[in-house]
């Protein structure tokens, strides 16, 4: 057997599409909608599409905004249904793509891999399609992950930069040949790739701003910035040329449909150029961030005493430990760093001042609480009052002992449902809680004792098991 990297890549690519197929598989189980007309996987792709288009370097799409843009597509699939249902379907798909309801809000697929030694191991592949992130203003917004973008674009597991080049070449060809519909798709692909590229850079630059030593400024980052600048330069050239071409195509077009498509394309390519400009501004400021941070950190003066490197000597090693082994060091750290607990109220005077403290005014009310629609619970009683009364009569056995089989036969003659109730109560009477019954002041108690024989299901209406002798024991004398 061989160690096949390509196989693993394909397995993972396949796994990324699984949540979409799951949607269609699960739609039959939804009890609030007859989901047959809805193509859930299509809606899901459309949702990821909307999130990706709205993604920016700094902001993403709000939940509400995405749902609003998906609803028309949902409505097109089932125009005769109520708009509320369309909204609910769109929300359900969005929630499923985030995987709301799990702690990690992601997906896990297990795949197998043959390692270098030829042994087969099962590995867990964790991935997410849409993630929720916090904006600077504290709002929660959505972004599509690399996995989602790859699923959407169809270029499964390809190198970011090479895919970018391919998309641009394709775009240019399509425009020259005048195929605007395909050109639009290719332009969008190119834009997704640009977004992806910018995302990688953003994370690196954030790290640089925090700690100079955390990022390799000798080789790693200059290389990255260099290649990013080259990338931007070439894209600028390519896209400016394309823009010129399609602007001409737009202005020359006679047919309104074609004119509009060309106009769309102008917008998309314009947006691409805007994104490149954003990326470039970030790249240019990176150097000055590094210099300022280096000045601050290097010329701070000689250390007064030696101390532990919290990040390198504690945080990183602990992050690498298995969860079970990391508990002890982290608990030890927490105990050391938490400080002493202070009893909330030490003296009467502090209690008084605590009680007299004016309440904190809360203005961030969550709004009106929704009134839940409650359906009255269904009648959960399996046996009717009449059956209970009959069973009571049958099992009232003062001073006599009767076999369970006889009782069951009699019960079967009275009511076909009765033997089961009698059998259940007889079982309950086996080794009853005597002390509790006496404490409750119960006058008598049903007691069952096994005889060692077996019940014949044919005679007892299908009930099998040990034959019991039942009798009612009086408890009055003891109290």
């Amino acid at each position, binding site marked *: 057997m061989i160690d096949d990297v390509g196989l693993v890549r394909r397995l993972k690519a396949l796994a990324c599409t699984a949540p979409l197929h799951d949607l269609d598989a699960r739609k039959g189980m939804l009890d609030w909608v007859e989901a047959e007309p809805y193509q859930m996987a299509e809606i899901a792709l459309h949702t990821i599409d909307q999130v990706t288009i709205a993604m920016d370097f700094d902001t993403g799409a709000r939940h509400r905004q995405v749902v609003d843009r998906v609803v028309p597509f949902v409505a097109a699939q089932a125009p005769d249904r109520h708009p509320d249902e369309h909204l609910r379907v769109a929300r359900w798909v969005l929630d499923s793509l985030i995987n709301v309801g799990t702690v*990690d809000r992601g997906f896990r697929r297990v*795949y197998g891999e043959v390692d270098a030694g030829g042994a087969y191991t099962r590995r867990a592949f964790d991935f997410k399609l849409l993630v929720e992130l916090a904006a600077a203003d504290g709002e929660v917004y959505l972004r599509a992950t690399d996995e989602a973008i790859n699923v959407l674009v169809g270029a499964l597991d390809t190198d970011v930069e090479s895919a970018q080049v391919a998309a641009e070449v394709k775009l240019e060809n399509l425009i020259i040949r005048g195929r605007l519909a395909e050109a639009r798709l290719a332009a969008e692909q190119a834009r997704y790739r640009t977004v992806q590229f910018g995302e990688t850079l953003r994370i690196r630059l954030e790290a640089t701003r925090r700690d100079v030593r955390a990022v390799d400024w000798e080789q790693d980052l200059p290389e990255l910035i260099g290649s990013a600048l080259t990338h931007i330069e070439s894209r600028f050239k390519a896209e400016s040329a394309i823009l010129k071409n399609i602007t001409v195509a737009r202005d020359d077009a006679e047919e309104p449909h074609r004119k509009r498509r060309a106009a769309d394309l102008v917008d998309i390519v314009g947006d691409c150029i805007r994104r490149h400009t954003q990326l470039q501004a970030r790249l240019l400021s990176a150097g000055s961030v590094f210099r300022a941070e280096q000045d601050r950190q290097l010329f701070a003066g000689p*250390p007064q005493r030696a101390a532990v490197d919290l990040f390198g000597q504690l945080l990183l090693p602990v992050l690498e430990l298995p969860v079970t082994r990391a508990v002890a060091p982290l608990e030890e750290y927490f105990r050391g760093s938490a400080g002493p607990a202070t009893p909330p109220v030490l003296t009467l005077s502090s209690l008084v001042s605590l009680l007299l403290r004016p309440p904190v005014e809360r203005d961030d009310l969550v709004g009106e609480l929704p009134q839940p629609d409650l359906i009255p619970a269904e009648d959960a009683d399996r046996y009717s009052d009449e059956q209970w009364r009959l069973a009571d009569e049958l099992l009232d056995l003062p001073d006599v002992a009767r076999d369970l089989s006889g009782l069951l036969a009699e019960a079967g003659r009275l009511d076909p449902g009765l033997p089961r109730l009698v059998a259940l109560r007889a079982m309950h009477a086996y080794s009853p809680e005597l002390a509790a019954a006496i404490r409750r002041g119960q006058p008598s108690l049903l007691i069952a004792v096994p005889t060692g024989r077996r019940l014949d299901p044919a005679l007892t209406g299908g009930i099998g098991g040990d034959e019991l002798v039942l009798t009612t024991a009086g408890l009055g004398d003891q109290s």
Partner: protein
Amino acid sequence: MKTVEDATAAATLIGCGLRPKQVPTRDVVYGELVRRYREDPGFAQVVNGVAGGLGLRVLDVSPAGGVVLAAGHDSVFEIKMETYARQAKIRERRDVEKVLHGIVHLAVAALAFPRPADLANDTYVGRVTVEQVDLMVREACRLLDERADLAGTADPDADTPELEQVWRAYARRPEVAATKDGRAAADSTRGMVARALRFLAEQGFLVPVASEPDGLYRTTHRYQIQVRELAADRAFGELLALGVVSIVDGSGRLRTTTDTLEG
């Protein structure tokens, strides 16, 4: 000469130390007692003795930070991780929850004092926000992920979930998650960080910076002492015992002096 007055004064000083937000510069009695502790070795001994009897250790006494106390194991003043992480949901593995809270606390300190020199420098004031703490840990997770990729162990073994590494658990947890009423969920990583910062502020270790609206905190002297003199060494000791890190300079000291960029 040890008298009842001395014992009372010592207990008063410790009492001040237990009030996290009280500082000697704003309290004449407290300031006087701090001065006495530093100048009178006999009194210092009594204070240390009284603290010891209560299960506390005096880490530092200074005019700026006052008395910094640490609770010993099984002291009534000790805050345990179990108490802190109690809200953890039952369905989740409790270890994971505890570890994530621990990582968050460690990361707050690591961000507040990014270099050993910052931790050692008494005048250094660190600044932290929820976003920065979370981003730092995630970046560390990304580095470890890259390293794992290079080593050819990209994905964890599915048959032994208990051997999953901490960074995978952290990276998988969402940074925020919107609840039905549009608030951020507490079991997302940013929810955890926000909780840690509020907790540390209540303990007098962090102070919100009023001029900055977006939840910026600065560190206090107490926090630096607590992390430097106690917590970091304890955790480091545990890591040594596990054989995860080793002392490299051969002198048997835990602390390193590497400070320059060449390192």
